[in-house]
């Protein structure tokens, strides 16, 4: 997976906490991406860690549940299991415009250049793309 943000292409440095697994502090420095349910469950343990924290939202998730925690999150990943599933657009819009989330907002899943413009218009500023996707087509969009 490559991450595109502004003009930069990087490897993904975030580790995904497997669903339903309690976090340990082995790799406390490692940026950790957590599903919403696990976040709500282990919030206090996670907040005690030194590393950066992110939450992965799926389509059914109520973004409102994250409101109290937005300041603690460096990343929110919005999923597009298929690119025609457009729930992430509303989630992104709400996070940015209504709840004033200021951290990185990343599209994950089936992320293709043809939707990148729409995605940046709702506030998404980074894209997680598979190696087969032409990364050049994303440049100059968000920053």
């Amino acid at each position: 997976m490559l991450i595109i943000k502004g003009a930069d292409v990087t490897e993904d440095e975030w580790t995904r906490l497997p669903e339903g697994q309690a976090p340990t502090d082995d790799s406390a420095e490692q940026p950790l991406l957590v599903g919403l349910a696990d976040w709500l469950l282990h919030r206090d343990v996670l907040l005690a860690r030194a590393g950066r924290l992110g939450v992965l939202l799926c389509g059914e998730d109520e973004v409102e549940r994250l409101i109290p925690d937005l300041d603690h999150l460096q990343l929110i990943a919005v999923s597009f299991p298929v690119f025609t599933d457009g729930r992430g657009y509303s989630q992104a819009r709400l996070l940015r415009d209504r709840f004033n989330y200021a951290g990185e907002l990343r599209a994950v899943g089936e992320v293709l250049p043809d939707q990148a413009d729409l995605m940046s218009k709702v506030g998404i500023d980074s894209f997680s793309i598979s190696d087969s996707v032409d990364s050049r087509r994303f440049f100059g969009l968000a920053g």
Partner: protein
Amino acid sequence: MYQYNPVDQQLIDQRVTEFRDQTRRFLGGELTDEQFRPLRLMNGLYLQRHAPMLRVAIPYGLLSSAQLHKLAQISRDYDRGYGHFTTRQNIQFNWPELERVPDLLGELAEVQMHAIQTSGNCIRNVTSDPLAGVAADEIEDPRPWCEIIRQWATLHPEFAYLPRKFKIAVTGASHDRAATQLHDIGLEVVQGESGQSGFRVRVGGGLGRTPVVAEPLREFLDQRDLLSYCEAILRVYNRYGRRDNKYKSRIKILVRTMGIEAFRERVEREWAQIRDGELRLSEARISEMKSHFAAPEYQFFSGEALLEVERRLMADVDFGRWQRQNVLAHRQPGYSIVVVSLKKTGVAPGDLTADQMDAVAELAARYSFGQLRTTHDQNLVLADVPQTGLYALWQALSALGLATPNIGTLTDLICCPGLDFCSLANARSIPLAADIAERFDSLDFLYDLGEIQLKLSGCMNGCGHHTVGHIGILGVDKKGEEWYQITLGGRADNQAALGQRIGPSLPLDRVVDAVDDILQVYLQAREEQERLIDTVARIGVEPFKERVYAHH
């Protein structure tokens, strides 16, 4: 008529460039079928049975002569010399080649037209009353509101990938000619308590597999809140509408599952958050938009000039007949509304050849301020014709085969493309429509029957709106054969209702007889000026059923 500003123009020009690139990548194998599909649908392009089909948007049915000339040229250069007007006031081309579609879209952009959002799971072309701005029963012209909605909905980043397609219709008159109660959102201009106008909002109407009449969502919406309220509805739908089953993904299912009360509560809660935000319409914006739809410069005609028309009407029976049937009252003295019938026997309803398009475009330029409208019933309307021009216009339309005096009658029927053109069809619809038109071709008989809306669909997707036909005919597949299901009592007006089945489906060769049986029962049972739809309401479907199935 609204004219694009540089931003609008840039938007559609960019879209053409983008689609040219996407088509190239698809043809070059860079995009899979699955990936290309939503992209082409977003640009109105279907790939199906015989050839691609391209659906071009005609926003709220309004066209200029220049645009119709362009459509004529396109149907010549890219298609087989004709186009098909749909029940959603759009036009479809059935034979363009995929490779050339980007060029075609480029040509459309030259006359401020496009095919954006005419298919796919997004907000579709807004539809409206074809008599907007000229109807006597109008409270307020719906077109400025349609255009405001169009601009908001076009390429709206949040709502490009909804659970399913989404249709909005607006009416500004007391008689609903836009079938607003059969749309995902139906907007009806109403007068508020203190005299200012606003909207009654309905939600969750629609045809297709699960036809539903929309439910009232809000009795009165301030005009300034139009977009924020629509945005609230769309956001609730986008977040909570089902996506796992395409037959359960329309907003009507969400409304039904949640219940209208709970749905309303959600919408109102969402709306409270955005009501005072940037979507609120300013007085300046509203009046600027209204200025685009100001009435044309009507002339004054002397009594003498109008007397001449009267004389013609007395002298020429055919002209008189056309005038009674196809010409409607205008609210401006000296002017009339002319319906151009696209329902000549032997022609597929809604079809128009390139030559006819050019000719109608010229007639519109000469007689109706260079504008015309497409209608939900698949006809055209010249909305501002001076009565002094009626006779010459009638002659010209007659010569073109566009003056069949059958508007509002049984043969002014609606029909989807059916098995001849559509890959989803169970049965043919155009040939059946032709059989019906042929059987009931006596004008006196048609006039005696009065207003009847017959609607025909080739499958349960219901593009021919059969569920809301006074007489509805639906093509079904019975072990690989074409059969037809008949319903009675549907209507799409202010008293919108779904038709009731009269019994088991019938084979093709019995359908026209069944229609005849229905008409006979009506003629015997009707009281005074009662229309078929009223008779059905009074006596129910039983007597019709008995007659239709009596022979078997």
